[in-house]
């Protein structure tokens, strides 16, 4: 009994060291989404054309799985993600874009410069929809299934590896779902 008391500190320390070691492998800034397996929050956003124009609404996310990409013209990592999004669109998976806290004018110019991979683009100038989505930065991408439920969230740019290894298989699986 008394012996055990003296062993306790090293046991507690071993536990702590394990947690610290594990912690090193994690990114403290990455925040898990609250929306996984829950329906996409409701929104209806205008487009980025002059005078608004048609954007899209959450209600339209039905019938086929889609990617919902949050981006901005001022976002530093977005140009890096852009070719991947183009590739995804070319492979026949619909990508929807929400321009976060971005002037429509700037969004348009950005798309004109890099090319437009999006099936539709909407503007969230106030950033209110982004808060409903639990967005913390750009780019972030939600994978929404046929029933309009969020199934996956990518924080940061989608790299070719993430697309091929994680998201594409998921999209194919979602397509196969009833």
């Amino acid at each position, binding site marked *: 009994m*008394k*012996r055990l008391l*003296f*062993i306790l*500190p*090293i046991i507690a*320390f*071993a536990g*702590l*060291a394990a*947690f*610290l*070691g*594990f*912690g*090193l492998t*994690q990114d*403290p*800034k990455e*925040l*898990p989404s609250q929306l*996984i397996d829950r329906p996409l929050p409701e929104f209806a956003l205008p487009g980025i054309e002059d005078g608004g124009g048609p954007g899209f609404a959450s209600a339209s996310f039905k019938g086929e799985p889609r990617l919902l990409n949050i981006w901005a013209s001022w976002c530093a990592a977005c140009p890096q993600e852009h070719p991947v999004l183009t590739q995804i669109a070319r492979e026949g998976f619909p990508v929807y874009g929400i321009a976060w806290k971005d002037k429509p004018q700037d969004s348009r110019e950005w798309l004109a410069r890099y090319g437009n991979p999006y099936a539709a683009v909407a503007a969230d100038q106030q950033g209110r929809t982004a808060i409903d989505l639990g967005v913390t930065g750009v780019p972030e991408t939600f994978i929404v299934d046929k029933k309009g439920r969020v199934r996956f969230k990518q924080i940061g740019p989608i790299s070719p590896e993430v697309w091929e290894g994680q998201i594409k298989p998921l999209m194919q699986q979602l397509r196969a779902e009833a």
Partner: protein
Amino acid sequence: MLAEIGHFALILSLLVALAQSVLPMLGAIRGDAALMAFGRSAAGLQALLIGLSFACLMTLFGQADFSVALVANHSALSQPLPYRLAATWGNHEGSMLLWVLVLSIYGAGIARFGDNLRATLQARILSVQAMISVAFLAFALFTSNPFARLFPVPLDGAELNPLLQDPGLVFHPPLLYLGYVGFSVTFSFAVAALLEGRADPAWARWMRPWVLAAWVPLTCGITLGSFWAYYELGWGGWWFWDPVENASFMPWLIGTALLHSAIVTEKRGSLAGWTILLAILAFSLSLIGTFLVRSGILTSVHAFAVDPKRGVFILAMIIGATGTALTLFAAKAPMLRSGALFGSVSRESGLTFNNLLLMALTAVVFLGTFYPVIMEAVAPTNKISVGPPYYNLVFAPLAAPLLILVTIGPMLAWKRDDLGALARKLLLPVAIIAVVLAGLALWTGLAKLSAALGLALGAWLIMGAVLVLVRRWRGAGGFSWRLVRTTPAATIGLVLAHAGLGFTTAGIAAMSAFSAEKILVMRPGETAAAGPVSVTMTGAEEVEGANYRALRAHFSVRQNGSTHGLVSERRLYTVSGSQTTEAGIGVSVLGNQYVAIGDVQQDARGQGLVVRIYWHPLVGWIWFGGLLMAMGGAASLSDRRFRIGAPQVRTPLAPNLVPAE
């Protein structure tokens, strides 16, 4: 050339440390006096070499030699010279060099002033100290070389973060490192005691000055850091429960516990195992603090540029140091002779409860700091944050009993006291505080009862400290000047430290209940008030500084009929483009008036400047108390019984002083 000399000296010091980590230990085992003596010379040489290396780096910063990557990345020509020099430790690599420098200075200190120690104990301490040196020198050389060259050489460097261009940077990190690294000495004492299988009153007496030598600068460093944040961050916060603050606070709490448990071990031979454990923990928590700041495992405003490789290295060091020490503790500590027993009402008991409460407080800070990491492992989808609301809620109820105990503890007799006698001694102080509390509660009202309690606690502590002096000076035969003159420095230390804690407590209580703020848009000529402070903006202008441009606003501040001027600036540092706020602070004993300007904004009456006005009652007491605590520690350190260079011990060892069990 200087960079190469510095680098080379650092490599040499690693070799010296390697030899020092093995040979004196061997000497202690074999009883070889020459090998043990080598440890003392090696410790001195190591300090010289690292000192040379550090001087080289500082000179490079002074010369603005941008061919050295570190200099180019952390200082610019436009930066004033003192801040260019202080930039030496305003970055990861340079601060590691400062860390090993302090480590080697403590090592040399043990070699120089430790000749009253048992020779084998000293040799073992020096070896353990050198092992820590080896780890940190290897870390500096292999993952964070401060002398790496840069090519092509830039014409000017990247500016040091403007928030760091402050006298605070000159003193705050070195003081903290003196504290953190100082606990390496007590760690080495603990490990050496375990290796020798002996932790007796003499050992505790030898160690105590080193505990104080770490605790005093750590107290100063934390106090200064808090003050720095207060005037620099622009809204008057003085403590944020940020992981990195916590990293300095935990060793302080454990160090404070150690300071007190070592008294019991020294005076009564008891709690030796516990004292050893605390000595190990104090340094381990210092190491973990380093890990926190440099690994990126937690997000913090203080964090250095993050590199996971460094995190792995530091974690390996922690596992090596703490793991080995605690394993040794598990194996050897049960064999230590336990000292005298004590009654449940006794000075020893009081100090033990002091330790328990300090452990519980450390647990609050520890759990709060690391729980997010633990949650990430056990419940990855339920990430949590732990912030000030948690700490404030849990810390206060555990701190209160400790503060009550601080005044009672010194009244208790050693070994065994009598509850009735204690009650008689407490009667008057408790009655006085009850009246004070009642008065305060009437004044504050029920809604702010917690503030009344906090202020009364502060008064209780200050009164308790004064009572210690009164009891000492009155003696058995009434007051005498002889008793005043012969008051031991250690008693003065106790009085100052406990009174300091009282001032800090009162300051915190007043700040949390009575501070006032007003945030609004102002134009010259307009007046606004926060609490008792009335502020009129009298003008605004643009000014040029050495390496910044600023908007400066002038205010006339009125309180209790007296008026004076204050100035606040919003600075734009031209090289880095970052901004800082220089608050205007009107200081008085009763509280500070604090005015800070922000950017330009529109309100109903047009364009103006955002102004934040605060009234911070008794806030200065918080730091004054910290300073008093540090002075108390320094006074104790000066006590001739502890004097580091005190005359040699003639008898090798005390037998158990009191028959045990």
